């Protein structure tokens, strides 16, 4: 059975609940433009009904706090796609720089990797010219000059690639401090969340933790696992812990074979980080796979051309009559690796170009003919030098195109998920206006009931008292 005082109590609670709900709406409106803020919804909970004589009587409402409107599945998917977008973005930037290096520099006299194809043609054509007049000094000078242009462009290309690799190494290394700073902050927030809000969404603290996780996802590939008491564990995509039970584990670096490697707890996770995602994944993929592939192909080209040309020159007869001992035109590399960087012309005297065949007189041109023919022979991994270089450029273009495609798709996916996330979690002022109006009406209604109860109570208190009007 209800009493007037019970009704007073119920309406007081209703006013409190509506007031609290209006505060939640006010906080949402105030944070409408706050980056990372997740809109909150007030929680109303019906109080336990009173049982009197077998009949249940309602006992009002309590506002039990606000819940952030978020979906962890969506957030996690967004973070994953962000990792992919950041990784392909960083890789694409690096690859575009490499590709620009191999763009032909038409009409310019400057030495560029893009001119290597025409350099190869020019070098072998210079032997064709020498065939016509093997003793001509200016034609011999022309052979050395075109050899020098070719060697210069190849070695400059290798130097540029190595320089880009070093720059990527520095970029990758720079990510470490940001990662450690974020994992430290996440671990600290995790401790706070677990101690203050173990059973429910932690609101602002949770927003901060999500923001840090989002930033971390842009830097490296991570997995996050929800643990008990509203905590999370963060690992690399290969499973090394970065945050666990409120404790962060530092990502450290060390130099291995001249490049920066990454460690967690003493384990070298560089290869896993490369495939893991995030900016670091993109930098490492470009540093350890894309650029070494291009550099390896360039080394193969330089090594084959140098070796074949030197061998043929040493097999002929030079203008001084040296038979089978004319010397090398190019520096002879000891191994394939590093051949491009070390490519240079070592012959200074054009008279040592062996245009004549072995045992032939100096007027003979058979060796010059053989050297010119090298340009069309399959001397580099079963391909002619120009075809091999064309394939190198073509493969690089295909790689750039693939990464571009992946990046476009990943960015589109991020846009889709971000739009959904905003629709769910960002403050919608129209919704807030509607909610405010609802709570305001509810407050007014409760207030009206309160006034009526007050009047009723006054009437009850006056019952039995003598009226002034008889």
């Amino acid at each position, binding site marked *: 059975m209800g009493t007037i005082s019970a009704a007073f109590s119920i309406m007081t609670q209703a006013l409190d609940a509506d007031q609290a709900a209006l505060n939640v709406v006010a906080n949402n409106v105030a944070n409408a433009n706050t980056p990372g803020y997740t809109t909150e919804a007030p*929680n*109303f*909970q*019906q109080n*336990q*009904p009173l049982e009197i004589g077998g009949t*249940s*009587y*309602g006992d009002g409402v309590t506002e*039990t*706090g606000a*819940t*952030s*409107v*978020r*979906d962890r*599945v*969506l957030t996690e*998917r967004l973070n994953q*796609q962000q990792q992919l977008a950041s990784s392909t973005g960083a890789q694409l930037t690096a690859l575009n720089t490499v590709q620009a290096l191999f763009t032909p520099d038409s009409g310019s006299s400057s030495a560029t990797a893009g001119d290597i194809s025409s350099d190869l043609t020019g070098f072998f054509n210079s032997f064709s010219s020498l065939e016509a007049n093997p003793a001509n000094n200016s034609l011999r000078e022309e052979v050395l000059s075109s050899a020098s242009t070719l060697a210069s462009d190849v070695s400059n290309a290798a130097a540029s690639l190595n320089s880009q690799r070093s720059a990527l190494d520095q970029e990758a290394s720079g990510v470490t401090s940001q990662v450690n700073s974020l994992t430290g902050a996440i671990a600290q927030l995790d401790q706070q969340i677990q101690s203050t809000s173990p*059973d*429910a*969404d932690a609101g602002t603290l949770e927003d901060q933790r999500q923001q840090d996780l989002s930033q971390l996802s842009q830097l490296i590939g991570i997995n996050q696992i929800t643990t008990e008491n509203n905590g999370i564990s963060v690992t690399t995509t290969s499973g090394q812990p970065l945050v666990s039970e409120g404790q962060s584990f530092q990502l450290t670096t060390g130099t291995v074979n001249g490049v920066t490697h990454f460690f967690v707890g003493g384990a070298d996770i560089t290869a896993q980080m490369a495939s893991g995602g995030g900016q670091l994944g993109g930098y490492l993929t470009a540093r350890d796979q894309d650029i070494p592939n291009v550099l390896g192909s360039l080394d193969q080209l330089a090594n084959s051309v140098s070796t074949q040309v030197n061998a043929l020159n040493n097999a002929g007869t030079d203008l001084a009559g040296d038979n089978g001992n004319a010397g090398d035109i190019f520096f002879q590399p000891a191994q394939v690796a590093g051949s491009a960087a070390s490519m240079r012309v070592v012959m200074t005297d054009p008279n040592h170009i062996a245009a004549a065949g072995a045992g032939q007189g100096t007027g003979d041109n058979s060796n010059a003919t053989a050297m010119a023919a090298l340009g069309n022979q399959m001397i580099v991994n079963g391909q002619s030098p120009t075809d091999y270089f064309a394939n190198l450029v073509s493969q690089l273009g295909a790689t750039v*195109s693939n990464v*571009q*495609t*992946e990046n*476009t*798709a*990943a*960015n*589109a*996916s991020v*846009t*889709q*998920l971000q*739009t*959904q996330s905003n*629709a*769910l979690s960002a403050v919608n002022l129209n919704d807030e206006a509607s909610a405010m109006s609802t709570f305001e009406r509810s407050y007014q209604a409760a207030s009206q009931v309160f006034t009526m109860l007050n009047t009723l109570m006054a009437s009850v208190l006056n019952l039995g008292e003598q009226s002034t009007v008889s």
Partner: protein
Amino acid sequence: MRELNLTREDLEIREVLAEASRALATLDATRLEELAMACQALNRVGETHAGTDADPLNRRNDRKLARQAREAVGDMRAFGRVLDATRANLSVMRRLRQIRAGHIEYSEAQARGWASSEPGYGDN
């Protein structure tokens, strides 16, 4: 609605595909339908005088279209990947729709609130 501006003369298939990828990224169904209709119209034009038309202007346009289609291979691949990513996102989006419809609880507190409001006073 934005103007399509896809006349026969200035049509570029790559632009259509890039626009389609953008529209898919923002889940702009209206724009995607517009682009689909533009592509259907393009197909009809191609089928009308495919290989048999003697009009030099049409033949030139056909050649232009074929060249554009070849050039658009990369953009088509990108559009395909955006489509794949969208498919993968759909399950998350379905879940969101359910959340908005109130079918999935956000938190234990809310679940407790719902549970306590089920039977009791006023229930008929």
